[in-house]
């Protein structure tokens, strides 16, 4: 956590406020229609509290590409889904949704992560940078320019993740050799096989920085 208020209780049910509101706002039947297994079972057993809890939403405050957002989501919503579905930032892609492909790579507090394996609520107070936040107005980030120049993509689905990883890679200093670039870009899969051009793009940006 980047900041904890001084008066924050040691242990807090962060969503305790919204429980009754939800029941007021929602029809039980429509909720059941949308909901699988455990919740239906809970409802059948009249475990009203459990049923309500399962839908509770939490407000998460975070900064995305320099803009502060306050979004209320269920705890199960991933950071990737928050970006794409709630903030309409669809540059970060959902490939495998399991941390295996890297298409969802974003920077959280300057560090690259897989946004599909981070819950949105885990990012309270964090600063997120997505592919949409790299360019300076109409001026593309040097890494974006280099990917275009070296044809570092074919279908383009992995590209935003590749670029976010590549920008982080430069910062990490893992660009000493072709082998090192390959190893530390291995979390980003490109099924079109644009790897050699991606490496060229990274090498060019690196050499221009010197």
């Amino acid at each position: 956590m980047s900041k904890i208020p001084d008066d924050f209780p040691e242990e807090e049910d962060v969503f305790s406020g919204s429980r009754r509101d939800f029941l007021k706002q929602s029809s039980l039947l429509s909720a059941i229609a949308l909901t699988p297994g455990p919740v239906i079972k809970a409802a059948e057993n009249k475990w009203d509290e459990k049923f309500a809890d399962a839908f509770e939403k939490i407000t998460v405050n975070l900064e995305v590409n320099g803009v502060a957002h306050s979004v209320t989501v269920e705890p199960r919503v991933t950071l990737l889904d928050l970006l794409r579905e709630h903030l309409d930032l669809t540059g970060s892609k959902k490939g495998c949704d399991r941390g295996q492909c890297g298409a969802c790579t974003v920077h959280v507090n300057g560090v690259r992560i897989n946004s599909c394996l981070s819950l949105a609520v885990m990012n309270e107070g964090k600063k997120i940078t997505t592919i949409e936040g790299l360019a300076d107005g109409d001026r593309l980030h040097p890494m974006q320019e280099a990917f275009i120049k070296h044809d570092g993509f074919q279908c383009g689905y992995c590209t935003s993740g590749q670029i976010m990883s590549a920008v982080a890679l430069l910062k990490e200093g893992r660009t000493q050799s072709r082998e090192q670039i390959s190893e530390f870009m291995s979390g980003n899969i490109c099924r079109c096989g644009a790897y050699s051009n991606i490496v060229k793009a990274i090498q060019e940006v690196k050499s221009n920085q010197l």
Partner: protein
Amino acid sequence: MNPFQYTRSFAAAGAIQSLMKEPHAYFLAGGTNLIDLIKMGVVTPERLVDINGLPLKGIEKTSTGLRIGALATNSEVADHPLLLRDYPLLSLAINAGASPQLRNMATVGGNMMQRTRCNYFFDTAMPCNKRSPGSGCGALAGYNRMHALFGASDHCIAVNPSDMNVAMVALDAVVQVKGPRGERKIKFEDFHRLPGDRPEKDNTLERGELIMSVDLPAAALAFNRHVHYLKIRDRSSYAFALVSVAAALDMEGGTITGARLAMGGVAHKPWRLHAAEAFLKGKPADLATFRQAAGIAMQDAKAYQYNKFKLTMAPNAIVQALTTASA
């Protein structure tokens, strides 16, 4: 993902208390394994207790060695100057695992708690005693290419997927845990367990116990000059080990004065090779010695239909790791 409740904790006592309140509550750290398992329906929590606010990220020297907070990320550990200087084997092992993005999220405690990558465990349509006790082991007579050579049972032949754990066990790390009944220490070698007839239990933690830190002993410093972590996998990066070997030697001239050796990808827990270590002590660091040590290490190996190749791969990997470490 199934819906679940979420609690944020800022102190260990509160986190443990929150977890104990519900039978299907889990601690949430980096989330890289747990969230994947929830998406797959393998784990169905009613509550996640987010412990990322706990002050457990520090990496600091102590009177007995180095203490690594349970919430230090894999990257923070692998790239830490003290680790690189004093315990390079651990840095090598961590950097052999997962991808840079995942290592930036995954924590030391979470890495220790990660579940097996056995396909039958992940596929909820298949029998698996680890996921669903009593349902049988799909791997036993199934596609068991990734599976164990040592310490398996008819109930489970899955392997522990971690690279970090292999180096930790070789370095004689000690795990500090806190639970409802107080604090205790667990030798890293005793932290993970063999499947026996209770494969649903990966480790010896009791319910509600939280990993606080892992301590690396100063005694392991003797092994920081001749180290290698060899990981053999289906592609050259970002894949789980078929076999991995952590090797660290203390040497005087061409003679081995002490050895630390452990294997990954071959057992339900990181597999320390004590007998081979004892054999290596006092021997010349040469190919004949390494081959004999590998033979000793493989004595109790038992393969299944599709992982017989590991019976050749594993001893070769031991020889290669020792050769590289001693060079």
